């Protein structure tokens, strides 16, 4: 991919990087929302210099000694300058403090292994302990099969952490971007109190190829895309990328106070 003229991931049109950046990395030709690395997301959403990183040094341990896994991780650490597929921390958005996590699709399609699960869990626990809301910008190919059962268990671990956050009366907002699939969709992604999505993102449990193989027929038009999920009741809102910061700020603001405190529940 040319760094100066990156291609749209859908229609393959090349765009001058400065224009693309101005357009929030949305293709002016086909409207496709280009996949973004974690730091770009942070820049687009968080208040300047407000981001404080958590657990930057946490790394995978290849618990199964899975063929080629260790090498692949090392390689990705070099190319992405990240240690794993999720960046977590705290930040402010229009002055409102929140914990904030972003998955980075360059890192093994941001599949969830032990590190992704642990970092997200710690972030949610930090929110619960410090009375903060939580935001997760999600993209993921699902579970990281190279970590086998440890990967699967991250689904239970992160879901339990969302429950504990909610039980303290605090919200999780999730933003689903292209692609959000597998074990990540089937855990924290679908557990947002409010679930936002970018348009035309692939969102689902099973991958389209697997489904096609199973049922032996083609998918209906728009199947597993954001608009389809919205129509089927799975999403709260589609949000344009350039509105994302502003919508998240409004969500934080609305959830920043409890109007009714008479409840003995919390």
């Amino acid at each position, binding site marked *: 991919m040319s760094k100066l003229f990156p291609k749209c991931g859908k229609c393959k049109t090349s765009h001058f990087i400065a224009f693309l950046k101005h357009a929030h990395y949305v293709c002016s030709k086909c409207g496709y929302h280009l996949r973004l690395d974690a730091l770009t997301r942070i820049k687009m959403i968080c208040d300047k210099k407000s981001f404080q990183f958590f657990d930057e040094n946490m790394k995978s341990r290849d618990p199964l000694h899975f063929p080629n896994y260790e090498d692949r991780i090392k390689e990705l650490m070099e190319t992405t300058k990240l240690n794993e597929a999720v960046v977590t921390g705290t930040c402010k958005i229009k002055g409102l403090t929140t914990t904030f996590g972003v998955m980075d699709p360059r890192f093994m399609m941001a599949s969830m292994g032990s590190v992704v699960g642990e970092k997200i869990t710690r972030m949610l626990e930090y929110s619960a302990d410090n009375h903060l809301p939580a935001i997760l910008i999600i993209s993921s190919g699902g579970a990281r099969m190279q970590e086998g059962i440890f990967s699967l268990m991250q689904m239970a671990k992160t879901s339990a952490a969302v429950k504990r956050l909610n039980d303290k009366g605090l*919200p999780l907002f999730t933003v689903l971007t292209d692609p959000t699939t597998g074990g990540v969709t089937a855990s924290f992604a679908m557990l947002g109190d409010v679930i936002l999505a970018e348009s035309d993102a692939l969102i689902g449990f099973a991958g389209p190829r697997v489904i096609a193989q199973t049922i032996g027929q083609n998918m209906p038009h728009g199947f597993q895309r954001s608009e389809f999920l*919205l129509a089927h*009741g799975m999403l709260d809102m589609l949000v344009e990328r350039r509105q994302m910061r502003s919508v998240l700020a*409004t969500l934080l603001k609305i959830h920043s106070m*409890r*109007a*009714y405190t*008479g409840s003995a529940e*919390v």
Partner: protein
Amino acid sequence: MQDTKQEKATDIVRLARHTKRPTTLDYIKFIINDFLELHGDRRYGDDPAIVGGIGFLKDIPVTIIGHQKGKNVKENVRRNFGMAHPEGYRKALRLMEEAERFGRPVINFIDTPGAYPGIGAEERGQAEAIAYNLYKMSSLAVPIISIITGEGGSGGALALGVADRVYMLSDTIYSVISPEGCASILWRDSAKTDDAAEALKLTAKDLLEFKIIDGIINEPAGGAQKDHENMARRIKTTLLSALSELLSLDCRTLLNRRYDRYRRMGKFTED
């Protein structure tokens, strides 16, 4: 309703169904700041016949939900004339449970001919959806205020109507069955619709007398459809005044009063 003349029930039925009356989204536009519409029941679908979302009423974060009719034929087809399917009631309940979790009061606008009587609605449990809303709303741990802004049609209205305060606009109706349905079932004669409207005692005035509702919000001269903004302002005033009372109650008191509110409804003898 103009107090100077005694309108017939059948006229009020007509006014309550006036196609130019403000809809839920109209009211939201006037009274809620920072509104975000939220969609879906997270199970099956997003029913356009019920809308809901969050925002600020003055400086109070609220969840606001309501039946949504269309402004024209095309939109009415999409909105199914405000007749919800089970997924509509389940979306409403999902939003109310979110409201409970975050201590937001709930405001419901009711304007529906009734729950949709169709094959898919039955298949997906129309009865269960309504029943479960009644069950859950009876102890939802935040204040609930419901306002009938047009037609309050039967169980499909009540599914948004279990509340701490229930108000009706002056030219609206709230009834166990439509006058047409009543005439057709009871007298097998749709010509008797006017008689049925009268017999059912379905006007705001009747229901206030019966202590089923807590107050009537008067419509501006000529009806709500003549001045949406004015009507919205009157609703906002009522909501703020009711909320200032309700928000000060502790949870046990709130829920006991809500229970007692419905507990005392009914007329019988025990001699």
